[in-house]
């Protein structure tokens, strides 16, 4: 039963792989057509946030970081922004496509997955600014950068798992979207995105370390900026959460799928 479901899930994704590309292309194309700035939006959010936090943590309340603060913050915000925008987009991915959900059949995972894919394209675009900052601050990557694909893979899978859960939750309960907006704000500050995790100790520090996004963001900084492998304990925790979360979220999604059309 379980094995049949898993096989069906993967086969469907394989059969409809072109649709995933098409849906992603559709959303990218639409944004490019509908907004004046097009892909510049991808850069705006992390840049603006970096400027704000640089002002706060360099002028108002200076804190010590291993690399220049703007570089530190941009790296964190870049990674955070991918997860945040992918999830913000996928929460409504099913409910804003009512017509397709009720009238046509194809694997519904395509909706949250394409939301993640669209945000990933933004992520890649915004990453060019990180490269520019690294050059500006003369931070050269070491061989640790070879671990980057692994970090990115875990990050995408973690985000995809949450995207599935949120899209489904918002289909059944429409206020999930509003709750999630509130949660995102809290979550960012609980994820050591704009401050170093070493700066927080005690019980609060332990809580922040238990948050999988902390390990995620720190792993990026390690392989890109510090030239070291990710901290084994925290990255292993993030990976473990991802490895358990993705298959269970997907399976749950798949088994609820046939109720979507009746409940949307």
């Amino acid at each position, binding site marked *: 039963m379980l094995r049949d479901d898993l096989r069906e899930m993967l086969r469907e994704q394989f059969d409809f792989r072109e*649709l995933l590309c098409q849906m992603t292309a559709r959303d990218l194309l639409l944004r490019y057509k509908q907004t004046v700035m097009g892909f510049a939006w991808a850069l705006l959010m992390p840049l603006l946030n970096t400027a704000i936090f640089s002002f706060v943590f360099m002028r108002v309340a200076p804190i010590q970081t291993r690399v220049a603060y703007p570089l530190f913050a941009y790296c964190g915000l870049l990674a955070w922004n991918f997860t945040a925008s992918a999830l913000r987009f996928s929460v409504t991915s099913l409910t804003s496509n009512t017509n397709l959900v009720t009238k*046509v059949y194809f694997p519904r995972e395509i909706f949250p997955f394409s939301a993640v894919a669209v945000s990933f394209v933004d992520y890649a675009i915004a990453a060019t600014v990180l490269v520019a900052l690294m050059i500006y601050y003369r931070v050269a990557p070491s061989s640790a950068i070879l671990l980057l694909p692994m970090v990115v893979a875990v990050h995408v899978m973690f985000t995809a798992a949450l995207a599935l859960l949120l899209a489904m939750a918002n289909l059944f309960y429409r206020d999930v979207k509003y709750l999630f907006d509130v949660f995102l704000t809290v979550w960012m500050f609980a994820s050591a995105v704009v401050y170093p995790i070493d700066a927080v100790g005690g019980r609060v520090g332990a809580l922040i370390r238990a948050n999988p996004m902390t390990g995620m963001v720190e792993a990026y900084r390690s392989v890109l900026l510090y030239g070291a492998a990710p901290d084994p304990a925290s990255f292993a925790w993030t990976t473990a959460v991802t490895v358990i979360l993705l298959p269970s979220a997907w399976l749950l999604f798949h088994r609820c799928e046939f109720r979507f059309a*009746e409940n949307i």
Partner: protein
Amino acid sequence: MRRVIFDGVWKAFRRGERHDSLRDLLPALVRRSLGRQRAVSENVFWALKDVSFDVQAGEALGIIGRNGAGKSTVLKLLTRILKPTRGSCAVVGRSGALIEIAAGFHPDLTGRENVYLQGAIMGMRRAEIAARFDDIVEFAGIEPFVDTQVKRYSSGMNARLGFSIAAHLSPDVLLIDEVLSVGDMAFQEKCQARMKQFRDNGVAIVFVSHYLPAVARLCNKVLLLDQGATVRLGTPPSIIAEYCSGSRASDENDVAIKARLRRSRADRVDDTFEVAAGERLNLDVTVQFRVEVEQATLGVVVWDLTRELYVYGASSDFVGVPPIRARAGDLRTFSFTFDANLTRGLYAIELNVVDADRHRFLGIARGIIHFQVVEQISYDGIANLYLAGREGASVHDLRQAHPGIAR
């Protein structure tokens, strides 16, 4: 080969209060745990009750019924949008669904972009769509607008493009819902021709429609549903006639009317009830009187079943049959002749006996005779006026040459 299998399917929907926000859910959970929630069974609505059928390759099944009969639910189960509550259904092979042909269109994308998107939604590969792109656009007749945003299209163009994409799939099974009610007459004809072509090439078709003429033309068999249950599964003329006459029951209190239709040459119209346009038909009627009557007349009315139109009405006294005087228990026979000067479609004959003195119906027989007019060329409308023509002025009556006309 069985392409569509629908085996004892039941489908329930929940009815009544539904919690689509957490704010509603929490109080409802509390109420349920306190036992104040009504039993779940009271909130269940059965959209389908034990429906079974199958469709072979090269067959077309029509599904008809009033609104809420469960027609669309059948299609949604076949496309896997819904799952049956009990029973099983399956589609063997690649299925193409035309449930809402333009569902995947995005108004801000161009026709070209939408063709690729919609094609992918229907399960086509990019290379397949690219290979058929020109055909799709040509079939839809939107060549000049292919790079225009779809929001600037008329609804007709939208529908034409949607159908055209679906028409260029190469499915084993085609599921169609009401698509023929869109577009102009000429395009509808084109769609129907295309679907017939699919059927003749071995595609299994399930066709849901309110538009009965299309059902009559395309389908080999028809399923009549009423409130989720199967009323009958059979040949198109008989099922459509049953559906159309369902609301007008016969009333034969004072007389019993029997009738049959014969071709002028053959003994009787065969089981398919198919007659050619303009064919001369004989109608034999027997009336058994249960009451005494001084002056009765026999009325013959022809209905266009699929369009629900009153086509023709005449009475026995119009055509020189003397008023009928009868006693209770008398059995009388009458014969009539008429020409089926009709366009293609499905027709029913209604017979009535009227007491001319008292202006009262003694009995009406409805839905006992029906026939289908078939013809190669499809004229619009009901009456076949045998239009003839040629270029240039003429003093001759061109219609004299028409073989179909009797006089």
